C-alpha cells in the first residue's frame, strides 16, 4: 500500500487489490470522509476538509495488514450472493468479437456467463460498472473509433473489463448484448444497481 497526495484534501492509495479497502471504507464510512473513488489499482479518498487529511492518513495506516500487504475485510462482501443480470446476447459487435477471438458466438456466451464478475469501480457515467473477471482470452482493445451513441442497457467489453451502459451515451466498447435491468435511477435509495465490490453473474436469455 502506497499513499500519494492528490491536492490538499485527497489521498490516492495504491493497492494490488482494491476490494478489501473498498469494503473497509463501505463498512466504516468514517465521518472525515467526503467521497471515495475506487480505480483499477487505486482508491482516491477525499476528506471533508483539509484539516482531516492527517486523520485520514492515520486511519488508512492503522488498517491491519494481512499477507500480501493487503487490508482485511473483503470477505464479508464476497459472501453476499452475486446479482444475476439477464442478458440477451445479440450485440452489434458480437459476431465480429467472436471472430477476432477465434471462437463461435455460442462459445463466447458460454465463457462470458460461466464466470463471476466483480464491480471494481464505477466511472465514465453515473452507475457505469467496470467489472473484472472477464476470461483473459476475451480481452480486446477498445474500438479505434468510438460510437457517438450507444443505447442504454448495452452490455459491452473492453480490455479486462465488462461494462453496462446505464443510459444512452457515446462509447468505445464492443457491444455484446443488452439487459433490461435498470442500472441507474437517481430517485432510488440506492441509485446504482451495481456498486464497487458487487459480484455479478450474467444469465443468457
Amino acid at each position, binding site marked *: 500500500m502506497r499513499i500519494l497526495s492528490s491536492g490538499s484534501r485527497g489521498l490516492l492509495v495504491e493497492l494490488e487489490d482494491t476490494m478489501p479497502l473498498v469494503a473497509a471504507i463501505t463498512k466504516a464510512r468514517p465521518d472525515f470522509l467526503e467521497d471515495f473513488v475506487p480505480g*483499477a489499482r487505486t482508491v482516491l479518498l477525499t476528506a471533508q476538509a483539509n484539516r482531516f487529511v492527517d486523520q485520514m492518513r492515520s486511519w488508512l495506516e492503522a488498517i491491519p495488514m494481512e499477507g500480501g500487504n493487503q487490508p482485511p475485510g473483503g470477505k464479508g462482501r464476497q459472501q453476499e450472493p452475486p446479482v444475476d443480470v439477464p442478458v440477451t446476447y445479440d450485440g452489434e459487435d458480437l459476431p465480429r468479437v467472436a471472430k477476432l477471438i477465434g471462437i463461435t458466438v455460442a462459445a463466447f456466451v458460454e465463457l462470458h456467463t460461466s464466470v463471476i464478475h466483480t464491480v471494481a469501480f*464505477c466511472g465514465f*457515467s453515473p452507475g457505469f460498472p*467496470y467489472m473484472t473477471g472477464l476470461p483473459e482470452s476475451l480481452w480486446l482493445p477498445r474500438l479505434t473509433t468510438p460510437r457517438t451513441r450507444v443505447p442504454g442497457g448495452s452490455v459491452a467489453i473492453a480490455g479486462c473489463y465488462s461494462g453496462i451502459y446505464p443510459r444512452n451515451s457515446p462509447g468505445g466498447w464492443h457491444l455484446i448484448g443488452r439487459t433490461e435491468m435498470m442500472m441507474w435511477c437517481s430517485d432510488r435509495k440506492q441509485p446504482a444497481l451495481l456498486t464497487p465490490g458487487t459480484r455479478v453473474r450474467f444469465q443468457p436469455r
Partner: protein
Amino acid sequence: MTPRSIIITAAVMQATVQDRGRSGYAHLGVGGSGAVDLRQYQLANRLVGNADGAPAIEYLAVGPPLVFEARGNLSMATAGATGGVTINERSYWSHQEIAVADGSRVRIDASMSGMYRYIAFRGGLAAAQTLGSVSTDLLSGLGEAPLTPGRRLPIGQDQRHYRPVDTVPLAAPREIVRLQITPGPRDDWFESLKPLLDHPYIVSERSNRIGLRLVGPPLKRCVGGELPSEGISAGAIQVPPDGLPIVFLADHPVTGGYPVAAVVEEGDLGFAAQARIGHLVSFVL
C-alpha cells in the same frame, strides 16, 4: 397570489442552475458539479441575504445576453464576471442588490472581465434536487436541464438570512491568472514539472465547465504505457499524450486514464474557471 418566478425569453450559449454541488456519490460515478466559481456564487447569494447553498443561475457570459421577465416583485444581484444589468431600459451594474418590479424585462449582458456570472434572487430558485443538489452536471446530464427560452423558474420563499450588503470591493482583473498547485499524485510520470512553472499557458477555446484546456509548453512523460483508470480530484491537472495540461473544474469525470501532474488549490479554482479564452494562466508552487 401567483407564485413569483422568472421566465427566460432568449437563447444563450449556456446558462444552468447551480448550487454547491453533490458529494457522497463519487464511488458510483457521480461527479461534484456545482458552481464553477464557488466564491462568487456565494457572494451573489450573500448580496440578496440568502443562506449559502441557495440555487442560483450560472450564466456563461459570452455571446447573447441572458434575458428574462419577472413575475412578482423580486430582489436580485449578480456576482462573478462583471457587466451590465438592464431592467426596463434602465442600467445597473453587477455586485449590488437590485429591486425588480413585477413584469420587468431584465437583461444580463455578456462580460469582458470573466466567463461566468451568477444571478441570485432573494429566496433562491426553487429547483428540484437530484442526489442532494440542483446543479446541472453537463458531463453526466444529472440535475436541472440547462436554461432555454420559455423556461419558468419559480423563486423560493422570501427570507433574509443575512443583512444586505451595500458595496463590494472588486479587484481589477489580473493580466495573468496565477494558480497555486500541489505536485502529484503522478508527478513522477513526468521528466519535470518545470515547463508548468516556467511559462504561462494560454486558455484554449475548448475550455468549459469540465476543464480549462491550456496551450503552451508540453510536459514530457518519462513513464511509458497507460495509466489504469483512477480517481481524479477537483483541480487536477491531467496531462493527455499531447502533453498539454487540462485543469479539471466542476463537471470533471470522477475517473481518468491520464496521469495527473499536480492539483490546483481549491481556493484558486474560481479564478481558473473565470480565465477568458486567449488569456494567460501561470502556475506557482
